[in-house]
């Protein structure tokens, strides 16, 4: 059905993060990892097992871990610290801002269990605001990969670039559809499907539903949608987005995140400046999450192909 991208089953993105860290560790002995007690959840446990001498358990102390990472980086190491995104983006917010971003140090932060799909734990653990926060930090690179393979590549790429980076990924198993050979370059959006009627720009686990929505739009509505995987929110790929606006004339964004300040806002900042076209935003609309099973919650919040199609039909009317 989707010519370039084939559904290859459900795999959690955090697995890509854990494996990416091990591969980085093999390549570079300066890679060190800091644990925040949930190493088995965000899968820094793989690195801990493989390189016990380069793993340090900091305990439940996200602010301390983040700042220790800055110290390690100022001593020539490449530290990764990961926790649930709710805690590795917010419990340490000041430390991210000053010790990491302002110092412009080579620290990488993993934000796992992000979004509503962390599920039954409920609102406290469902981080829906970190894109908004992190993309305002000067020097910060922010990546929200779409599936397992891409998370692995993003992790490796983050470890091999110089400067602060944050990788946001999830807990639940999500459709895997990219492979070893799919291109991934930080800052370069991937156009996954060509089309000139509307562009759907998505990140993270909303990319696959965007592809599904595009197929349905073409079959049932004769609308030919371009699908853009904007895996890097910062630095943003203005070129690909501006072209999409010019060639498609309408844009829908989709993210597992607050609408306010998220991927959609980042895209809008580019579009409004260069080529204003009608836009619609799919995301969580100014509320906290709540307990439920991941799929149940995605449907509850309309974060599915149906939700994307509704937004596309709405934006087409405004073209």
């Amino acid at each position: 059905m989707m010519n370039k991208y084939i559904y290859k089953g459900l795999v959690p993105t955090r697995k890509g993060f854990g494996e990416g860290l091990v591969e980085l560790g093999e390549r570079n002995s300066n890679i060190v990892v800091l644990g925040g007690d949930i190493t088995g959840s965000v899968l820094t446990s793989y690195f801990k097992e493989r390189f016990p001498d380069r793993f340090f358990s900091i305990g439940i102390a996200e602010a301390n871990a983040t700042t220790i990472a800055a110290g390690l980086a100022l001593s020539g190491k490449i530290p990764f610290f990961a926790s649930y995104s709710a805690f590795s983006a917010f419990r340490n917010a000041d430390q991210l801002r000053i010790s990491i971003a302002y110092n412009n140090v080579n620290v990488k932060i993993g934000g796992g269990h992000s979004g509503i799909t962390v599920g039954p734990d409920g609102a406290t653990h469902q981080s829906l605001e970190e894109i908004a926060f992190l993309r305002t930090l000067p020097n910060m690179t922010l990546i929200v990969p779409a599936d397992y393979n891409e998370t692995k590549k993003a992790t490796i790429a983050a470890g091999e670039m110089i400067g602060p980076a944050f990788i946001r990924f999830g807990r639940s198993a999500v459709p895997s559809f990219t492979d070893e050979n799919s291109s991934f370059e930080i800052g370069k959006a991937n156009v996954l499907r060509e089309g000139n009627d509307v562009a759907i720009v998505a990140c993270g686990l909303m990319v696959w539903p965007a592809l599904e929505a595009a197929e349905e739009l073409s079959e049932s509505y004769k609308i030919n949608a371009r699908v853009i995987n904007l895996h890097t929110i910062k630095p943003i790929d203005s070129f690909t987005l501006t072209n999409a606006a010019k060639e498609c004339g309408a844009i829908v964004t989709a993210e597992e995140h607050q609408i306010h300040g998220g991927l959609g806002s980042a895209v809008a900042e580019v579009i409004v400046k260069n080529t204003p076209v009608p836009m619609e935003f799919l995301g969580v609309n100014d509320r906290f999450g709540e307990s439920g099973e991941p799929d149940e919650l995605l449907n509850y919040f309309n974060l599915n192909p149906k939700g994307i199609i509704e937004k596309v039909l709405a934006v087409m009317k405004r073209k």
Partner: protein
Amino acid sequence: MSLVIKFTPDTFTNSPKTNHELSHIARTLRTDVVKSLYLAKSGHSGGSLDLSEIMTVLYFNGFLKYNSKNWKDKSRDRFVLSAGHLAPILYSTLARAGFFEVEELGTLRKLGTRLQGHPGLDTNLPGIETSAGSLGQGISIAIGMAMSHKYLDKTSQKVICITGDGELEEGTVWEAAMASSNFKLSNLCWIVDNNDCQIDGRVSEVMNIYPLREKFEAFGFDVIEIDGHNFDDIKMALSKYEANLKNTDKPTCIIAKTYMGKGVSFMENKYEWHGNPPNKDQTIQALNELEL
């Protein structure tokens, strides 16, 4: 074997009881925790179970003053569960104290429930004093409440807060400790659930927090170390706190030695049970062991 989950309808009074009566209540709470976590298919068994005796004495022995039918009564004592992931034992306690229907325990963690995975103030569930789930925040909330009562309202109600021991790794917890004695919060009782377990392993190995007594003493607390499963110990420690509240300027810290998963043999003292629910067979075995 088929397994049909039903919650017994019993509620319990809040008045002094014999240890025998208290242990019946503690077993009921444990049974609720096992059942609600089995139905939820996720959640934190270990720590929830190990707080059963402490929650029993707090809510069912006349210690905390509350009115479950008019729970926002301004003169109530305040209880803050800083370790928000231990919500199941709080929900069971509140239900058995008549704050809401026991049946509702079966909705834990399900879409639309008031029994969120971590307590949410937005649900308006009776008896919940604050949202919690990001570790280390509840104790500062409790301090704010204690300051409000002591210095602004000039009332003498109690403020009790339970934190985990892994939770003590959060830095703001020690900012809170400093503030407790700085503000002479003798109305504050901080209970540490010292099961020495957290997600990745033993607390002493993940990040060594010990020695605890000396730390809290250095921060100006009257420290009482107890067996957190022994009713007499718990009652004694809480009476000492009541005396501190009346006669001193010292905040109280009760370090309760507990065993994660207490009461369910295969969970006992195993950190692997920090964050898992029992499956069907495990639930059957646990309920057999807890048989009332």
